[in-house]
């Protein structure tokens, strides 16, 4: 909702990675004017500050390696990224896409449009975060049910159980282990693998 985004923007912690020239200063001033908590850093740091919600980063070709390294460390998740570009050529675009920018500001930097960029980029980032969580949850679920399927198949073909009996066997094992279905099913599948190796290994 538009109004929620505006509320989220107030007090947003923004890091401005930009040379401290008049454009960089004017950018930081306008972000303060909008009501964001703004800090500046240049040259590019070695690591992203975990406390930053959003980063404006000047995309310059002479710093491309440092830029790539900075945004490569994805394990803790990236903040919202808005690239500041002086060129539109494909190699600059390549950099912008590689760092995963959700928004772009072209030079010369003007105050007009920054608020909109912030709102759109942040909104996009939030949706990406939500989608990422959803995907991970579904993957787990899917993996779980695949494992349960395999275990059921083993019990049905090897031990001659019915589908329902197989399911209940896995479920009982899960309860006695105080574990999930996926866990119990994995035990059965793993045990079967070992047996097969032993059987075929000799």
């Amino acid at each position: 909702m538009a109004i929620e985004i505006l509320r989220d923007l107030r007090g947003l912690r923004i890091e401005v990675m930009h040379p401290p020239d008049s454009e960089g200063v004017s950018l930081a001033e306008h972000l303060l004017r909008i009501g964001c908590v703004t800090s500046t850093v240049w040259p590019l740091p070695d690591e992203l500050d975990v406390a930053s919600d959003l980063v404006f980063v000047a995309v310059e070709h002479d710093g491309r390696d440092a830029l790539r390294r900075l945004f490569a460390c994805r394990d803790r998740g990236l903040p919202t990224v808005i690239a500041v570009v002086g060129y539109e050529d494909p190699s600059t675009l390549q950099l912008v896409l590689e760092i995963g920018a959700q928004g772009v500001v072209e030079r010369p930097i003007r105050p007009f449009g920054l608020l909109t960029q912030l709102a759109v980029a942040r909104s996009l980032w939030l949706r990406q975060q939500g989608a990422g969580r959803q995907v991970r949850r579904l993957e787990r679920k899917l993996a779980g049910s695949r494992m349960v399927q395999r275990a059921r198949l083993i019990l049905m073909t090897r031990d001659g159980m019915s589908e329902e009996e197989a399911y209940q066997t896995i479920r009982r094992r899960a309860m006695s282990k105080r574990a999930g279905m996926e866990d119990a099913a994995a035990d059965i599948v793993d045990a079967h693998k070992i047996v097969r190796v032993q059987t075929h290994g000799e």
Partner: protein
Amino acid sequence: MVLTPGARTPWRFGVLFSRSGVTAAVETTQLNATILAIESVNAEGGIRGRPIEPVIYDPASNPKQFHVLAERLLGKDRVRLLFGCYMSSTRKAVLPVVEAYRGLLLYPTLYEGFEYSPNCIYTGAAPNQNSLPLARYLFGRYGKRMLFVGSNYVYPYESNRIMAELARQAGGSILDEIYVPLDAGPRDFAKAIREIGRLRPDVIFSTVVGRSTAVFYEAYRQAGFDPAHIPIASLTTSEAEVAEMTPQAARGHVTAAPFFDTLARPAAERFVATYRHRFGAGSAVTAAAEAAYFQVTLVAGAIERAGTDELDFVRAALGTLECDAPQGPVQIDPSNNHTYLWPRVAELDAQSRFRIVWDPGVRVRPDPYCVDQRWDGWPEQAWPGSLPLPTQVQ
């Protein structure tokens, strides 16, 4: 411009206010006040011995025309300073031109905030200087169930959003939100009138602008509603719009602005008297005119101090000046190019005159990005003692 000894080449100020079209009435007051201020400066010897020459065009309330004429003023006529604009759509049309030519726009009109340009000085009220005090006054005096009626463009939408947010914080509610065309006629207000009758709000917040204002207030009167119980509250209904309606239609409704023609302080009385002496005894003298007036005074002072009308120097000098405007001492806030102003609320009496019903006596710092827009952000000592403080919903 090069200053040669003895040269009397005038300082040329571009002026863009509408003499025709939907917002002509109030813009004409701004034009008049600009001329009055220029004449006053010239009567005192001008700026550094050189007179001001206004270069005036009429954009007829049309944003495209504003754009074209701004181009002419800055490109062909080579002015650096532009005094003008009322509706936000016209300011938006002019600003890119001013920015491209590194000029300065002096914008003397209340607006919806959320803007900053290094090439614009905003001398009208930002939302925290009119919407916020109006909301506090209305919620305490009439209630918190609101109905919105506005003209169909960006300013009413955004003002309504802000007012809705204030109402939400105070535990109020918005019963309906109705938009009419710019230059709406009586039939366009039929739905609004029906809804008022059906929903019976505590307050109608009107962001209808220009000559449709009188149409709306007349329609309200025809429907027989009572302003003592359901007032129309506005930021834009000024003496100019009131002059276009009957006294019966005007009576009892409320407006928030830093200036009214009845303001009883010496600088205000002098301003109104001088204005009426120059433009006619019965002339409407509006808050928009007052801003147009003091902004010329401020800029003249800045050029005097800087010795040039170049953007950077004028802007730097403006940040250092204070001027005793009709509303009170005002100054520009250089961090956002907006102006410290004195908010007030007035109610129309039976003779169509604005009676000031609340004057907090504080000068309020402009906050165009509503960074501090909290209900309790308003200074406590400004609250009128006779009115109960608004409370959260029970």
